[in-house]
């Protein structure tokens, strides 16, 4: 994985000093809260209901064990012993004191980490495929391009006061595991007819209150123009994105209002101009970064044999592991969705353990997924049973990846000042319901996503089943959506009808799954059945 050189280190060290100074000026009253707010946001500090929340960047979701240990130490030293992994492959702490924030950033900088631009109206952490470098279906490892973009977007002086936040995702495989088309810019690394590697740009996707799937605006940007093209996309947005209404300020609205053709025309014009400005790093820089992402020293003779005689282990292998490109290895997913737990939460002890296991069994590498789970990307099959036993003993052995129990949920009204309703208790009740009725396995792949308000941090639009918490005359109320999908055939869920109480939504979800089980054809997932038969039968059952 990528390691800092003296320049990268100087940048994060400088940032710590800068924020220490800004925090001091805030505490001395030299900066007003209005003036300080964007500065703290760009260092990941949100003011929530009860305390400050700190969001730490995990660039493209990749980290090593030393970094993971520091994340655990921060949970112990500055929080209440927990970390919360997020849908943007980051980690958040919910009980932070402002005075401690500069010291936390210094602890992070010591292991080449930061909280730069994890919030605010700027380019956020670059996300990517959690199986990058391990998946069998990828064209090339997408992370070097994400790292190139990370450096370009960090402290980019022109783009620190954009109309609104800006999220970029880079993938390089046919299967989209990162919801690429639901980003402000989604980049797919592709090969053209001449066999050259380049980037396809999808611009103007997003969730929030106006969900949009990003249209393709250019099918091939040569690699030695990647930064220049990105800069053109951003400049057009910075100049013309709406600033009169925060809810219409994302680039998706600009692309929608101008039309894809006109936005593209403006980007191409800006691009032609910027190509004359010498802003593109040389290809040698991309090659330098790529050298950090070579394959680990796989055991070339590793066996593909796996003893599945233990049924609990066999279930975990079936549900939580994914084929690796290297024979004898698998990608192991650690579910942070124990039945009745808080999706994405891990205790400091669990974070330490995952770090140790990564060091011992996965070439010192971990990934954070947008589904709020952790991945050990390179596990030898011969080690898998031992690994699973250690995970299971620590409460990390839930065998439920991509099932109805593997719920994405935002922090909701338990923590967030924007929320209208709680998300966590709904997630807990649903996973308990399905664990109790034993249908989790039979239901197969079923992606359920919960947001506690219309801002959609819990990706409810993209859930096969989505739940949106709203405020109905002072009471928490939950709307049900069906048919969303974040993958290659991206689609947005549709609301079934009137909303439900907290217990009512759990019943409604169960009824929807019963319709699926009754109606499904051979080999169909929940989503496939819904797409084939439509909403009507589900509505009849849910509102009967």
């Amino acid at each position, binding site marked *: 994985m990528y390691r800092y*050189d003296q*320049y*990268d280190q*100087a*940048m994060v060290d*400088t940032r710590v*000093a*800068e924020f220490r*100074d*800004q925090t001091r*000026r805030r505490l001395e009253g*030299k*900066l007003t809260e209005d*003036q300080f707010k*964007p*500065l703290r946001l760009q260092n990941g500090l949100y003011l929530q209901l009860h305390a400050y929340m700190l969001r730490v960047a995990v660039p493209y979701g990749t980290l090593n064990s030393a970094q993971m240990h520091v994340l655990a130490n921060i949970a112990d030293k500055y929080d209440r012993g927990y970390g919360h992994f997020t849908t943007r492959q980051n980690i958040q702490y919910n009980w932070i004191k402002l005075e401690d924030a500069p010291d936390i950033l210094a602890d992070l900088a010591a292991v080449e980490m930061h909280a730069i631009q994890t919030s605010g*109206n700027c380019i956020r952490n670059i996300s990517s495929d959690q199986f990058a470098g391990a998946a069998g279906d990828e064209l090339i490892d997408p992370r070097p391009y994400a790292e190139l973009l990370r*450096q*370009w977007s*960090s*402290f*980019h*002086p*022109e*783009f*620190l*006061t*954009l109309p609104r936040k800006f999220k970029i995702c880079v993938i390089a495989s046919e299967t989209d595991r990162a919801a690429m088309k639901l980003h402000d810019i989604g980049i797919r690394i592709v090969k053209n007819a001449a066999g050259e590697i380049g980037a396809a740009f999808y611009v103007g996707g997003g969730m929030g209150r106006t969900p949009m799937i990003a249209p393709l605006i250019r099918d091939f940007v040569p690699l030695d123009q990647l930064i220049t093209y990105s800069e053109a996309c951003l*400049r057009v947005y*910075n*100049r013309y994105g709406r*600033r009169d209404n925060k809810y219409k300020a994302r680039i998706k609205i600009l692309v929608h209002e101008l039309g894809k053709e006109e936005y593209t025309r403006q980007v191409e014009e800006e691009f032609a*101009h910027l190509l004359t*400005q*010498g*802003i593109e*790093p*040389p290809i*040698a*820089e991309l090659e*330098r970064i790529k050298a950090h992402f070579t394959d680990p020293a796989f055991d070339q003779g590793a066996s593909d044999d796996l003893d599945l005689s233990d049924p609990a282990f066999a279930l975990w292998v079936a549900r939580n592991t994914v084929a690796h490109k290297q024979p004898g290895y698998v990608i192991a997913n650690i579910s942070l969705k124990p039945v009745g737990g808080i999706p994405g939460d891990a205790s400091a002890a669990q974070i330490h353990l995952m770090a140790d296991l990564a060091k011992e069994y996965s070439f010192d590498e971990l990934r954070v997924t947008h589904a709020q789970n952790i991945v050990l990307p390179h596990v030898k099959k011969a080690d898998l049973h031992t690994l699973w036993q250690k995970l299971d003993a620590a409460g990390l052995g839930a065998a439920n990846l991509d099932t109805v129990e593997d719920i994405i949920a935002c922090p909701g009204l338990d923590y967030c000042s924007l929320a209208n309703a709680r998300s966590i208790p709904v997630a807990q009740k649903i996973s308990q319901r399905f664990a109790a009725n034993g249908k989790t396995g039979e239901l197969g792949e079923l992606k359920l996503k919960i947001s506690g308000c219309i801002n959609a941090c819990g990706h409810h639009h993209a859930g096969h089943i989505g739940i949106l918490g709203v405020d109905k005359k002072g009471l928490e109320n939950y709307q049900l959506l069906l048919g969303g999908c974040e993958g290659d055939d991206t689609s947005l869920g549709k609301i079934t009808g009137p909303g439900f109480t907290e217990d009512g939504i759990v019943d409604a979800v169960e009824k929807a799954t019963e319709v699926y089980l009754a109606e499904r054809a051979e080999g169909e997932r929940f989503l496939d059945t819904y797409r084939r038969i439509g909403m009507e039968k589900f509505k009849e059952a849910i509102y009967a």
Partner: protein
Amino acid sequence: MLDHLRFREDEPAGAPAVTVDAFLTQTNAAAVRIEPGDDARSLLPFLEQLRLVEVNFPSFGDGRGYSSARILREAGYQGELRAVGDVLVDQLSHMRRCGFDSFLPEKPFDPEDAQAALNRWPEVYQATGDGRQPIWAKRHPANERD
């Protein structure tokens, strides 16, 4: 306190800046003031006669002026580029990177804070046309490239 921060040796333009609309209809002015919604590119045919371009920041959170500044510098504008309005010390280094060489803030700067902000970043990741060598260029000196 610092009322006006200027990084130029020449004499400041005497005449007050006119609006872009006024400038485009009576094109003999040497000083113009850009508002966030103005298109900086409308000034490009007249850069030679301009000695001062003021870019107004009615609110520090509106970042359109950063693009306006870079567009003017990229087109070769050599005159004074002055940030005016709600300009804060923590924006100084970014504004310098976008080509501003003069600052007239609504509320004067604390000189120490301004100095610290301007000297903050020993390294930069991007090429922005401000003459600073980005990190990637230091990693790959020109004679090693191609």
